[in-house]
């Protein structure tokens, strides 16, 4: 890229903001992070495609609908990204202090309920009213998270459990408030609150039916949180506690106080997410309106690697998935729940950064290994593709028999996993690869037998081919295994 200009930039004594930004953009670790994140997303989408194939949906159609839906409804993407962004910042802030705020959902509910209460119970002039609602929402969110924060810091009660429990409690409490409780909309059969005053509503942007100024508020908080974490004393102390509690304590930092406040601030951001969403779009409190925004916040924070700007990217990505998901459901008839599956997969792949390393390292070594011994290497490559193909076919062939023959389904599943194992063993150049290939060929023979006994033509034809190919590959593998390799691998 443009690496020649780097040294001159370092020599410049006056580092402007732009220069510093450029430096950061050029840092190795950032590139690595971005690469890992993209690789994780690609892997997650790939795995989702396999799940779609196995459940009888067309992944190409689904993904194009998802993409098209996100492009066509870009205002919806940003609208969906707004609470995700704030919830993501909430989780990321707690994470910086080594805390895991898994119950942001509850703080979000409490914050939005409080904002609603101020929004319809008190009449205030415009601007003042909107701010009052936001401030109260933030305050209630802060308090609702401060409680588990204090319990964690001073009593050692694990925040993962307590915030989650309080989250369930908040759902029940808010439900009561708008059904039997004092905030129920009189004469309504639904569990909702009255509508908030116009003066409390956050106006929409550019005539969009969804996007409102809340998005700008959320983006503003990216800057605020970034500044707080990286440029203030308290932010520094929180990061110190998060990276090493004992060391921070030795350095004279009050770790307990910082923990409690960090979780409280995290809750404040979650409360803000709830308040913005109610004031900007719903305009009243619906029972269980959020549907897991707090949990989505974890996904966003994980994807953004707890960096506020990364969280912004993650929020827009998941906002796009959500907005596109509905379009996908109507146009490609793939249930929008698929989006949640993709979310889970993204988190799983991001959680394992070494998976990407594993892929690249073994990929390079494997390619070199094949180059050294072209004949056996090529055969191994064929066996690898055989494994991957068999993994697909196992599920695909046995899938239709889900209701009629359970043992066949189970066998197909085991065969699929076997295929994967073969592929991994070949990829890793594990010496058990020949044995594994034998096993899978045998499994396909078993599939053939059970297919014959059921007179299932599709199973018989596929199993016959794959068993035959499998045995041929296995025999060739045994024959061609170079002696020197065996010795080398044994050593």
């Amino acid at each position, binding site marked *: 890229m443009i690496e020649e200009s780097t040294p001159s930039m370092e020599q410049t004594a006056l580092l402007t903001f732009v220069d510093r930004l450029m430096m950061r953009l050029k840092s190795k670790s950032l590139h690595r992070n971005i690469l890992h994140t993209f690789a994780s997303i690609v892997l997650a989408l790939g795995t989702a495609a396999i*799940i779609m194939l196995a*459940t*009888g949906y067309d992944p190409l159609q689904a993904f194009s609908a998802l993409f098209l839906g996100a492009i066509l409804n870009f205002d919806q993407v940003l609208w969906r990204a707004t609470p995700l962004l704030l919830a993501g910042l909430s989780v990321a802030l707690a994470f910086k202090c080594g805390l*895991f705020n*898994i119950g942001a959902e509850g703080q979000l509910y409490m914050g939005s309920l409080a904002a609603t209460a101020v929004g319809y119970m008190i009449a205030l002039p415009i601007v003042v009213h909107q701010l009052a609602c936001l401030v109260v929402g933030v305050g209630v969110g802060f308090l609702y998270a401060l409680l*588990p924060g204090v*319990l964690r810091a001073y*009593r*050692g*009660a*694990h925040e*993962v*459990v*307590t915030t*989650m*429990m*309080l989250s*369930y*409690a908040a759902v*029940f*409490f808010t*439900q*009561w408030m708008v*059904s*039997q409780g004092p905030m129920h909309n009189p004469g309504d059969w639904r569990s909702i609150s009255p509508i908030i005053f116009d003066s409390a509503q956050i106006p929409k942007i550019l005539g969009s039916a969804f996007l409102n100024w809340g998005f700008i508020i959320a983006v503003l908080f990216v800057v605020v949180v970034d500044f707080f974490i990286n440029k203030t004393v308290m932010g520094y102390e929180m990061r110190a506690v998060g990276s090493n509690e004992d060391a921070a304590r030795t350095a004279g930092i009050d770790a307990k106080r910082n923990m409690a406040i960090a979780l409280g601030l995290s809750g404040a951001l979650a409360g803000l997410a709830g308040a913005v969403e109610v004031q900007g779009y719903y305009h009243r409190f619906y029972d269980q309106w959020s549907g897991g925004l707090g*949990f989505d916040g*974890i*996904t966003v924070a*994980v994807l953004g690697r707890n960096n506020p700007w990364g969280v912004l990217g993650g929020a827009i990505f998941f906002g796009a998935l959500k907005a596109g998901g509905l379009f996908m459901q109507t146009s490609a008839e793939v*249930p929008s*729940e*698929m*989006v*949640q*599956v*993709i*979310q*889970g*997969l*993204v*988190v*799983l792949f*991001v*959680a*394992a*950064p*070494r*998976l990407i390393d*594993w892929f690249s390292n073994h990929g390079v070594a494997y390619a070199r290994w094949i180059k050294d011994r072209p004949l056996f290497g090529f055969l191994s490559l064929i066996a690898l593709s055989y494994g991957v193909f068999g993994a697909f076919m196992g599920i695909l062939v046995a899938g239709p028999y*889900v*209701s009629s023959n*359970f043992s066949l*389904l189970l066998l197909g599943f085991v065969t699929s996993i076997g295929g994967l194992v073969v592929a991994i063993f070949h990829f890793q150049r594990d010496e058990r690869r020949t044995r594994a290939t034998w096993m899978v060929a045998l499994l396909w023979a078993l599939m053939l037998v059970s297919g014959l006994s059921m007179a299932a033509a599709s199973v018989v034809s596929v199993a016959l081919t794959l068993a035959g190919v499998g045995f041929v590959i296995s025999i060739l593998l045994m024959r061609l295994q170079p002696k020197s390799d065996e010795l080398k691998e044994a050593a």
Partner: protein
Amino acid sequence: MMLQVDPFSPIMIALLIETTLQMATPLVLTALGGMFSERSGIVNIGLEGMMLIGAFGAVAATFFSNNPWIGIVVAVIAGGLLAAIHAVITVKLKGNHIVSGTGVILFATGFTTLMLYVIWGARGISEEVTRVPQIIIPGIEGIPIIGEVFGSLSPMIYMMFFAVLISWLILYKTPFGLRLRAAGEDPSTLDAAGVNVETIRFVAVIISGCLAGLGGAYLSIGFGSRFGKLMTSGRGFIALAALIFGGWRPIGCFLAGMFFGFLDALQSFISLVVPELLPYNNFIQMIPYILVVIALAGIGRARPPKAVGTNYEKERPA
């Protein structure tokens, strides 16, 4: 006009005990699962997801095979498979335990809801399937309380007692149990003794998923007879609390699970005995969740296994 029920009549006490057992079974099973994982050093907050996929797997398999026992087996396998993913990420790839656990929960939530739609075309609950047949002990119906409680119980409740016993034996009386505890306390010493820490942890995490899957299966085909979206409703986390409350010990998990099960039972008991409180049902439903928080705050700093949550990196020979 509601019927006034005497809360201290033998029938009601028997009901309370029976509901306690029913509510505690999934918690105890899952808490035991969490215990295996955490004693080996791997934090497993994905228990909720493993329960959910177990509950789903049990109903799906029972639906297609019409045999609830196959359902149980599939639930155990499904929980174990999901746990294997967690194990690969945390043990092999040294990923963050909590992030991976969250991923497991998200994936299980999405996947079960998706499959609910794929299989039954439903968005809320599945079709009804055969339940695991109750074990009926003949001849004790006449005995007050005991007869009503143990006369007809799900075999999975007996399984739960059995699991506690077996877990205790495995953890404290077998070499594997000793290694498992060492992996959670001091993995480098275990490694120096020539035991593969990764293998021990891997197996422990898979056991935890199998037990959580079993716990989920009890919810869907032992206690109920269908799968509902998000039917575990935080029980995985309550089990996690029971694990902490029980001090990471099998008997402790059992007692804590029973206690939290009792709170759950008390909740339905109250709404039955004091019908005037019905408009405040939400508060009664909150009781178990709130009390878990109070309980955790009350026990103060519990002592977890020393190496829990940390990844073990084998030292590379220089």
